[in-house]
Each structure stands twice: as C-alpha cells, then as structure tokens.
C-alpha cells in the first residue's frame, strides 16, 4: 500500500482577512482564565459567565473562520499565521504561529463547541462548589491550551499545547484536592503523560537534527528525503506521545483514575477532546505516516490501537463504577481511532470522523452520568443505582441515544464512523486485514455488551438504592437536573443521532488538503456485508447482556467469587500491578538506596577524609611531649638527616 505523498508544505498560504485575527482563539479563553485566577473572590458572582462568554465567543469566531475557509478553493485552505519568533537561535527557529487548515478548524469547532456546552452544563453541576470560579478558570485554561495544541504550526507549539492541556487536566483531576485519591490520580495522570511527552520531545529532537527545523512546513517537505530508520523512529516516538495523551497501551492506566475529577471534566477533557489529541497528532503527521518507508511505524500504530481496543472493552465489562466503565470505553474507542489512523491514507479521515462522533456521544454519555450522580449524592457505583429511567426521563432518553450511537445502532452516529473503520481494517487485505478487522468486530460486540450492562444496571431494573444510604449518611432522592444541565445533554444527544450521517459524506473531502485523499479500498467483504455483520455482532453482545443482567435481581454487593477473567479485568488486566512491580517499587528502593549512598558513601567519603585528617593530626600532636630534651634530640636527629642528605647529594 503506497500512499501518495501529500506535500502540504508546498501549498501553505499566508493567512489574510478574517483569519488574521485567529490569535483571538487563543487569547479569548486565556484572557478569561487569567481574569478569573487573578481576580480571586471578587469574580465569584460573574466568573462563570465570563468563562462561558469567552469560550462561546471563540466558538462563534471559529464558525466565522470555518465558513470563510469553505468559501476558498480546496488548494487555498491551508494557511499559516505567523505571530512571532518564539525561540530563534542561529539555525533553529521555533516560530509561534498558527496553522489554519481543515484539520485544525475541525478541531477548533469540536473543542469550542463541546467546550461551550460543557461550560454551560458546569454552571449547574458545580453550583454547590464555592470555588466554581476557579473551576471555570481551569476549564478556560484547558480550552486555550487545547486550541494551541491543534492550531500551532510546528511541533514545538503543539508540544506547548500538549503539556498545557496536561496541566489543565492535572488541575482538574485533582479538583477535590482535599482527598488523597484525587491528588494521587492527578499526579499519576501527569506522570504517565510525561512518559509519552518524552517520546514526543525526542521526536522533535530527531526532526531538528535531521531536518533542521520543527515547523510543519519544513518537516513535512523534508521528511520524504530521510532514511527509513529516521522516519520509523520519528513515527514510533510520536506514537509514544500519542499513547500517553490518549490513554493507549501501555500508558492507559491513568485515564480511569482521572475520573476522580468532576464529571464535566471527564466529559470535556477525558472523553471528547484532550484524549483524542493523540489521534490528532498522528493525523497531523500524515505526510510522515503516509510514506511507504513508514509502513513499519503504521503497523505499530495499528497494533497498539488494536491491543488497547480489546483491553478497554474487556476491562469495561467488569467495572462497577459508572464513570470508570465510560473511561475504559473511551480508551477502547480511541483504540479504534488509532487503528484507523494507523491504516494510513485509507483511514485518517475515518479516524477523525469517529473522533468527532465520539466527541458528541461520549460527552453526552458522561454528562448523563454526571446528571445521574448529581441527583444521587454523587453515587457512582452502578450496583447501588437502578430503575432511574422514570426518575430522570430527560437524562434517560439522552443517555440512551448516546448509548445507541456508541454501540453502532443503524443510522446513528457510531454506525457510520465505527463501521467505516471496521470495513477499512478488513480492506487492508491478507492476514493483517482479517486480524485487525476481526479484532475491531470483536470489540464492537464487547462494546455493545458492557454498554448494555451499564444501561440495565443504571436506568432499568429495580431501584436498588431505595433502602440504602450514601457514604455521607444521606438517603437518596433522585431527581432530574436543571435546565443548564439538560439542555447541553439534549444538544449532544441530537449530535449523537445526526452527526455521523451528516459528516460521513462531507468530512473526507473537507479534510483532503490536510491529510490527503481518502483511499477507499475494497476488501474481501462488501460494505453491506460488513455493516450487517457489525450490527449482528453488536446485537449479540447486547443480547447477552440482557440475558445476564436484564432478568432477576442484581446483588448490591459486588460478587467476589468470580472467574479468573473477571478478576483480571477488575484489576485492570494487571496493568497497574505491572507498573507497580516494574517501575514504582524498584524506583522507591533505588531512591532509598541512593539516599543512603549519598549520605554514607559520597558525603561519607568527604566527611571521612575530614575525620581522617583530624584524627591523624590528633595523633601527631602527641609528639609534642613538652620535654625539652626530647625536642633537642629530634633537632639533633633532624640536623644529622639534613647533613646526611647533603653529603649524599654531594658525593653520590
């Protein structure tokens, strides 16, 4: 499979007209964040409104920019806006500039659009928190950093945004910082992301070494002339970065823990936008991954995606925490996207398509989960829920629409995006096609299973919460949430239903200037067969879930005597154990050992020399006995020695 090399670099135009003000996209949310953070308690009253206003303004500007771009020729849609030289040192010039092209604009709309909805939702969700203002500041900070990530016109500006969203994510996961688990989860997220960041950083260093620049235009123009080793190394290092940010194997363990943050955060950052940055990175680097020499890198990408896809599904089947199941679902859905972009020119657009539809329905699902928890004293254990459909009708309906979209119910969003990925994977041809296609199909079945389980345990069946009290001793009084929360859910539900159908036709063509033409290959099975197969397998998964959980009473306590696969899945397939055993514990031991070495060894040596000098002078001191005659004797001895030495020199 040889992709046409897409030298986007040759076609970059200077931004003009309305695009000249694109820096507003960064400055608006950043301004909101700064005002809210510096303003302190003075801004408590209107802080959330400022937060919403800045993000909505960015969204409106994004729309204007979008429509002004669609009116251009396809060739003129890739534009650069140079702001200033950021780090210029001799042959290295890191620019601070923006790349406005279909890919980045698509992300701008997703980020500011979903971001606006979640800002509005947060007004209701966080209404009881006395630090709501600060929450909005952090959300704004996140939006600004995420926009920088997608808009930057070089890998270093991308890295800036990349770590910026990491910071926002850290702050928001650790929102309830009085609780140790939240603080630990935040730290874990940041650290695992840093591991990925090292990959991204090294990729940037390789680019500078071999191509003398880190700007997209130069790098993508030069990448074709590099040796296969360099191309594959950069490809795999970028993937490592993507793994960190997108919760891909082997760096997936932080994402479920990240659910310690408030639910809007889970929806915005850990489902819809930030975690998809890895997909963006690979799609953005499509000129690299599309090269024939990068075939090995692409294969690694697909393998990582496929492993994660299955892993997320399997663990998702066993968890009892509402948000963590959704988190693992996110992990596995991003696995799909990574598989898609790993396909190369046949998949970039499909990956982005799934990313967008997933942004809608997963954000909706999380907001639904937040709405449930908001009404249930923050209870997240699905075994203690149940039968909430009647108490929360709007939440139930919107959530179910998102659920159907996710499992690929015909003609809803997921159906268009996920089926297309499965089909493209099968079309790879040969064993590879069957393996990845098969895994993707299996994943679809598992997804249907765990999502149906979630639906049944939360919304259907008997209300198991009636005789229980929450951890703080209050009884449960489930109620529907207010309009600031339901309206965003309704909008997202509409998106979950319609986005796939609308976008699947237009998106590939729209993205062409950025990621190249979508190459549709025809595999062993026709599109219709694949669609039917996927729907059937999903139906089987859902059916099994109904059979297992739909009938009879579900225990409130979690069954402990379970088979090995369930135990393994509950323990994250031992991912955390592995990290603990391989890195954390040896690290602690090594640290303690080094502290010992430093105190006793290195410093001991220094203090030892000092003590040795002191001790030996203490001994030497004893020669001064105070007996004058012994001094006289030593003087005599000394004189004789000197004379002897003189004579030796003289006559030797």
């Amino acid at each position, binding site marked *: 499979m040889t992709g046409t090399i897409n030298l986007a670099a040759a076609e970059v135009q200077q931004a003009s007209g309305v695009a000249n003000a694109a820096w507003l996209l960064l400055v608006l949310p950043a301004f909101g964040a700064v005002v809210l953070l510096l303003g302190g308690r003075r801004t408590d009253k209107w802080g959330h409104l400022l937060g919403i206003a800045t993000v909505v303004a960015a969204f409106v500007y994004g729309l204007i920019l979008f429509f002004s771009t669609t009116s251009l020729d396809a060739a003129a849609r890739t534009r650069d806006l140079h702001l200033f030289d950021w780090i210029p040192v001799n042959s290295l010039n890191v620019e601070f500039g923006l790349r406005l092209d279909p890919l980045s604009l698509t992300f701008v709309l997703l980020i500011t659009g979903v971001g606006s909805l979640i800002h509005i939702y947060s007004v209701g969700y966080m209404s009881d928190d006395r630090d709501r203002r600060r929450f909005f500041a952090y959300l704004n900070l996140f939006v600004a950093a995420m926009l920088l990530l997608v808009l930057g016109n070089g890998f270093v500006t991308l*890295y800036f945004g990349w770590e910026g969203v990491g910071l926002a994510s850290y702050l928001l996961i650790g929102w309830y910082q009085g609780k*140790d688990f939240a603080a630990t989860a935040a730290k874990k997220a940041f650290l695992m992301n840093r591991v990925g960041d090292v990959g991204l950083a090294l990729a940037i260093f390789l680019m500078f070494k071999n191509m003398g620049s880190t700007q997209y235009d130069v790098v993508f123009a030069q990448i074709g002339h590099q040796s296969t080793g360099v191309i594959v190394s950069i490809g795999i290092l970028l993937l490592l970065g993507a793994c960190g940010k997108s919760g891909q194997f082997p760096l997936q363990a932080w994402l479920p823990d990240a659910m310690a943050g408030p639910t809007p955060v889970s929806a915005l950052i850990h489902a819809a936008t930030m975690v998809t940055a890895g997909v963006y990175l690979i799609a953005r680097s499509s000129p690299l991954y599309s090269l024939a020499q990068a075939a090995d890198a692409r294969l690694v990408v697909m393998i990582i995606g496929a492993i994660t896809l299955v892993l997320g599904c399997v663990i998702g089947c066993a968890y009892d925490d509402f948000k963590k199941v959704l988190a693992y679902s996110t992990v596995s859905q991003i696995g799909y996207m990574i598989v898609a972009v790993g396909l190369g020119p046949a998949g970039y657009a499909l990956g982005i398509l799934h990313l967008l539809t997933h942004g809608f329905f997963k954000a909706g699902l999380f907001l639904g989960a937040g709405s449930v928890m908001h009404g249930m004293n923050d209870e997240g254990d699905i075994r203690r829920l149940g039968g909430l459909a009647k108490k929360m009708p709007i939440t139930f309906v919107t959530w179910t629409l998102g659920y159907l979209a996710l499992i690929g119910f015909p003609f809803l969003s997921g159906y268009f995006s996920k089926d297309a990925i499965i089909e493209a994977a099968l079309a790879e041809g040969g064993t590879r096609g069957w393996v990845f296609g098969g895994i993707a199909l299996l994943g679809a079945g598992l997804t249907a299973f765990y999502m149906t389980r979630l639906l049944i345990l939360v919304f259907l069946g008997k209300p198991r919460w009636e005789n229980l009290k929450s951890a703080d001793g209050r009884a449960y009084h489930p109620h529907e949430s207010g309009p600031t929360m339901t309206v965003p859910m309704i909008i997202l539900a509409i998106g979950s239903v319609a986005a796939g159908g609308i976008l699947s036709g237009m998106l590939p063509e729209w993205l062409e200037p950025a990621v190249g033409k979508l190459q549709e290959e025809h595999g062993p099975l026709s599109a219709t067969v694949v669609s039917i197969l996927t729907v059937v397998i999903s139906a089987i998964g859902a059916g099994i879930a109904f059979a297992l959980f739909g009938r009879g009473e579900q225990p409130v306590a979690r069954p402990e005597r379970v088979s090995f696969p369930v135990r393994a899945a509950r323990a994250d397939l031992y991912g955390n154990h592995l990290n603990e055993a391989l890195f954390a514990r040896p690290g602690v031991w090594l640290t303690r050992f080094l502290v010992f070495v430093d105190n006793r060894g290195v410093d001991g040596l220094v203090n030892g020399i000092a003590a040795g000098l002191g001790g030996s002078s203490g001994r030497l001191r004893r020669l001064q006995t105070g007996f004058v005659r012994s001094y006289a004797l030593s003087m005599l001895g000394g004189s004789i020695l000197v004379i002897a030495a003189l004579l030796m020199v003289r006559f030797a």
Partner: protein
Amino acid sequence: MTNPTSVSSAGSWLLAALLLLPLLGAVVVVALRGNDGTAKAAALGFSVVEFVLGLVAWFRFEPSGARLQQSFSFDWIPSFGVHISFAVDGIALVMIAVIGLLVPLVIGAGWADKLPEGRSKGGFFALILLEQALTVGVFAATDVFLFYVLFEIMLIPMYFLIGSYGGQRRQYAAVKFFLYSFLGGLIMLASVIGCYVMAGNELGKGTFDWATLVQVVHDAPLSTQIWLFFGFFIAFAVKAPLVPLHTWLPDATAEAPIGVAVLLVGILDKVGTFGFLRYLLPMFPDASRKLAPLVLVLAVAGIIYGAMLATGQRDMKRFLAYVSIAHFGFIALGIFAFSSQSLTGSVTYMVNHSIATGMLILVVGMVIARGGSTRVADYGGMAKLTPVLAALFLIAGLSSLSLPGTSSFVSEFLVLVGSFPNAPVYTIIGTVGMIFAALYVLWLYQRVMQGPLRGNALVGAAGGPGTMVDPEVGAKRAIGDLSGREKLVLAPLVLLIVGLGIFPKPVLDIVTPAVNATMCQAALVDPVQAVQSGERQLQCR
C-alpha cells in the same frame, strides 16, 4: 560576526557603578545597623537602585557590538601584569541583571525573618550587599587573576551568612562549604599560574589578561591543556555542584537562611557554569573536546541522581538542593554538547533557574515560616489554609519541571534539542530526567499542599493536644495566607517566568552573540546548519 575578543569601553561608568554601589551600600547599612528599620530601608533602597542600574546597563548593551563592553581597567600589581579590569559580555550581563533582580527580592523576603540571638538585620543585609558586589565582580572580571581573587573572596561573606545566620548545624555547613570551595579554588590557582607562565614563555612577559591568555593558551599542546583544564574544572565543578562534588550544597542549603539559599543556588553556583563557558571552552578548546564525554557523564548522572535523591528527601530545604543539582546537570550537558543552541540553552537555563528555583526556595521558605518545620512529613493539605501560597508553590514547581509556557521550558528545550545532534545518548537520558522532574515536584506538592489537613506543623498550630478546636479552624487562625509583602516579592518572579516563557527573545538576543563568540573561540561548529538560508548560520571571523 564581531571579533570574539573585541572590547568597547563605552558606558564603563555603569559597570563601575554596578560594582561600587553595593559596596557603598554595605558600608552604609553596617553603619546604620543599630536601628533595624533604617538599616532595612537603606539596604532595600541600595538594592533597588542597583537593579535599576542593571536595567540601564542591559539597555545600553549592544548585542551586535563588541564582545566585551562597558570595560575599564587599571594596573593593580604591575610587576606581575595584574590588572583590575572589568567588562561584560552578553552572558555576564544577564547574570548581573539576575543578581540585581534577586537581591531586592531576597531582602524583601527576609524583611521579617527572625535571626539568631544577637544578630542584627543590618549586619545580615550588609553581608548580602557585599556578596552582591563580589559576585558582580566575578562575572565582570576580565583579568584571570582578579577573577581568581574574587572567586575566593566571594566565599567569605557567604561563610558568615551561613555560619552566623543559619540553622542548627550552621557551623558545620559553613565550614564544609568554605573548605570545599576554597580547595577547588586553590587548585584553580595552580592552573591560573600555569597560564601566566605559559604567557610568559610565549610573549616574553607574563599576563593575566583574559583576552590575551585565550589566544596564548588556546594553541598549547593537548597534554598541557588537559592539566590546566582540570585545575579550572575542579573549581567550577565544585561550585556548580556536579556529582560527585555536590555534597556541600544540601548541607549549605539546609542550614542557610532562605534568602541566602536563594543567593547560593541562584547566583554563587552559577559562577561554576559561567566558568565553564568563559574559561574552559575558549582557553582549552582541545582539552574540552577531549574531556567532554567525562563531563557529559557527570552531567547526566547529576540529572538522574539529583532527581532521584530529591524524591527521597524528608527535608524540604535539602530537597531544593538536590533539585538544583539535577538542574545543574542540564546546564553542564548543554555546555559540553557544543552547539550554539545548547550553549544558549545553558545560559538561559542559568538565568531561568535563578528565577524559577529562586522562587521555589522563597515559596518553600514561606511554607516553613508558617509551619516552623522543614520536614515534609509535618505538612499536608495546606492548600486549604493558604490557597494563594499553594498556587504560587505550584507555579514555581511547574517552572522547575519545565512546563512549556514557563521560562524554564525554553532553556531546557534549547539544551536538549541542541545537545541531541552531538550527544544523542546523553540527551535521551537527560530527557528521561524530565519524568523525574515531574515526579519530585508533584510529589512534594501533593505531600505539602494536597490531601486532608495533617502534619504536626499544621494541626499542631491549632493549640496543641487537648484543645477542642476543630483542627481546620484552629490551624487557619495561626496560619495565614500570603501577606502583601510576600506577594510583592513573588509577583515579579511569576511575571518573568511567564513572560520569558512566551517571549524569550530579549534574553536570547543578548545571549546568542556571546555564545557565538564562544563557539568561535573554541573552534566549534554547529552540527545542524540552517535549512532555508545561510543568514542564520554561525560564521567566525
């Protein structure tokens, strides 16, 4: 490209004033030490004026002009060819500016510190001003003998600052600090004399003039260069602390008063890395190239070792020292990776480390001032009581782990990206050090600021056991958030961290020409040449 040793004397009065003003200040403050209030005001006044002078010198400096500017010189010991001569290049200038920035902040931070029995504020601040004068001199000296003298004299005020005003084991720490540095300095003296003798053989008359020595020693045979190199290197490696010559720093930092720790880590230690750049590379280019792997190993070992030890510390001030050791590893890595990017990165790292770590030390000092303990285990959940302090703690910490958007990122990125082409393996290990940086910063932040309220220092402040006060309420009564003075001290640092993180060009523009001149003197060539055009390439004359 200007001649790497060209000198211009325009504006020399500025440099002279920069040198003399703190001296004058020290004298005046000592005279006023009877009254704490006036002494403090005078010290602050002098340091602020000095800072403004530093700014003027910055703007008077022409990046494209001569290598050494604002120079002046007169005889000191004519029979040995020793001069008192000072001048600044871009590298020295930014360091002098940083000194000018830090001293007023340190004075502001130490405004209300309790000193040991029988010590006056006036004496303390006078010593700080004296130290300032001497460090400015060290960075600006262009006579190698003068440099040596100042390098050693600089220890004396610091010895008293630690030994008279420090914590429990201050005497031990001060003596250790002094002996370590002094010994290193003596070894350097041997090399300084060696250079003098070589100049004597070569020119017929010995000289200590830096620019002349560079040209003389430069062509010496490799073996001679290596011996002379080691003399200087050991002195600088002690000062910069490179592993394994670092053990004085944790003790000195732990025992020094907070402000003095800032000066120690932020300025004094920089003399070591400054020496690498000003003396080792230009004077002994062959030896530097030959021995670069050795230094790189020490540098990278420092990055990892410092970071791991920082994670293992129980004492916050010792933690700060190990963090600095890791950072100095990055600086040394950049210097001995020999590319203009990595060298520029190292110089900006010196500046940004002073700002970021200086802020971290000040913030930790504010934590300690509230809790009265330096042990990490005595704290926990402090963010609830002091949200502003927690936020600033986090900003300083994030800057320490080189988050993009903070000034440290620019320098760390430059160091690593510039080092990679010449020293890929070392750079990869150094990059892994980034993970450790995140680990130790967030670890400390979590222990001190996050989680439920705990720890003797905080809960104990409620009034001891037996009182029925809710710990949170009680603690809040005793432990307040930042005062206006403390905010004022930290604000400029935050502004600089963010400002230089997003727009570092003003510093880069000043530093790059000096770095290019150093590259030329050391006959180094950038491994990566510009892609687009030749204009950005480094050209030596």
